[in-house]
């Protein structure tokens, strides 16, 4: 059971990569970006997870070692917040560019958006 969720995270990752490299529609590519970011965030949270662990809040009078023995790792949770914020800004920028691209080319299809070549 424990391994299944890691497989899910990597399946999400591969789905996102597939959407990025194989899809030609800009909206689908942006969805791929979102899936890719969710996959990494899931992986980050999983790294800090511990079965039966409790919230990492130091109770009054509790020794740090006792907290470390019972709680989940709080650091990946801080990292995942940063990662979510970065993901939000990248997705917003991609959507903004997609709208400007639609204004210029009148299409979301990357096959028709190719003024630049080799």
């Amino acid at each position: 059971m424990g391994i299944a969720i890691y497989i899910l995270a990597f399946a999400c990752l591969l789905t996102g990569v597939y959407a990025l490299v194989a899809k030609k529609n800009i909206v689908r590519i942006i969805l791929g970006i979102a899936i890719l970011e969710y996959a990494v965030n899931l992986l980050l949270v999983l790294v800090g997870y511990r079965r039966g662990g409790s919230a990492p809040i130091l109770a009054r009078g509790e020794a740090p070692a006792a907290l470390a023995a019972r709680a989940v790792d709080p650091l990946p949770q801080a990292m995942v917040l940063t990662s979510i914020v970065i993901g939000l800004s990248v997705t917003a920028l991609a959507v903004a560019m997609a709208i400007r691209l639609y204004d210029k080319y009148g299409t979301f299809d990357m096959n028709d958006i190719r003024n630049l070549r080799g």
Partner: protein
Amino acid sequence: MKELVPLLVGIPLGTAFLIVILAHVRGLSRLTGLLATAVVAVNLLLGVWMCIAMHDGAAPAIWAGEWNGLGRPIGIELVCDGLARLMVVVINMVALAAIIFAASYMRRFTTVWLFHSLFLLMTGAMNGVVLSGDLFNMYVFIEVAAIASYGLVAFGTESEELEAAFKYLVLGVLASTFILVGITVLYSLTGHLNMAKMAEGLRRLPKPEGLSASPAVLLAAACLLGGLALKAAMVPFHAWLPDAHPSAPAPISAMLSGVLIKAAGVYALARIVFTVLGVNPYYANILIALGVLSMVVGMFLALGQWDLKRLLAYSSISQAGYIVLALGVAAEVLSRSPPDRAVAGLCLLGGLFHLFNHAAFKGLLFLSSGSIEQATGTRQLKQMGGLARQMPVTGFCCRVGALSIAGVPPFNGFFSKIIIIIALALAGRPILCAVAVGVAVGTLLMYVKVQRYVLEGAPTQRAVRESPWPMGVGMAILAVVCVLGGLAILPLKEYLFDPAGKVLLDSVTAAGRLAMGATP
């Protein structure tokens, strides 16, 4: 002195947001360019001063925003060692030339304050990348620099620029995702994010039988090397660069080709391979293969180009290949037993010197291409001609840059290429040595073509005028660096390259990792 290190990151980032406010205050909105130039100049002075004051090998580690939680320091660790100081000087040198150049070049665009704000965000974030002592912090700064650069590539908001920026964004996101996966796996293995402590933890991991490293470490290494090679535009991960770099405004092309692919790509590759993962024949051979492929493929693609900025962009791939090749051979020499530190040191000297030089001359060539494009209205080599007489300052600077990158003595490119070639021969790699010589000849041909079509010949257009003086000053700064890099090689070696090379050499040993903050 060491308290000033966080300012290298803090001043540009803070000023970037201050500019957004100033732009909306009546009467102050004209000052944003001056403010940005002043910030970059202060950063360059700080960097040079630190190089001179700390060249005895000091590498202070600063915990910005330190909070003493349960007996262990928690904060943002900034390590100002020799390599970081070299990179800070390179970044701010090119940034100063580019922002002075932009003072008149950017007049054709509206909302120039937005350009200044994004420019400072990118510069400050690159300073953060090279100073940061932990991997996650490095990732965040790489992302900040990358997001600012997506915006800057699309700055013209014409159809080509948007298309190039979107391709760049998609591949940039792919690269950063893989970098983050690699960092996550390494964190789960070691429980540390600090590079030196992570390296210690990785060396304590039990090794499975029949393998030189555990499969999880190899997975992380593959993700990190692939992601960073994509950021550094190494062949076969180079497809975005020839679209993105020429589409940006000229000062940004200079920054992207001159320093961004090095700070976010090559520098991070060097840190990961030498400091975190530890030198190993596998990683060394990957770097060598990437370097050789980039050098050869980049050169051939550049030779066939008739668009000046695309030619320069392909040539960036080829020249960055030299740096990665030199780093790879150094790692390979260090992983032999016993390691030959003298030869590895020579490889690193050549690679780092070439990094410095490439920033100077590729920045210079992109700035002069912007000046030429503004004067003639074209980027096609066949539609230019005789510009050496019509535009004396631009023509002279362009010639200095072309001679430097082609490796003509006494300019700086000659010395770094000859050091790399000699080091490859001493390392016992004659085939790589022959490839490096061949690519140097190809580069010479490429820039003979540029000079022949751009500067010589009969003028094709009558009313071509010299560009305004700020553009001339921006180009002149980098031209002087190109000449001085060749003539003043000994002081530069003592103050910049020796401390930087020593950091990479020593980070292989336990004592070197201790200096970066590992627990004994």
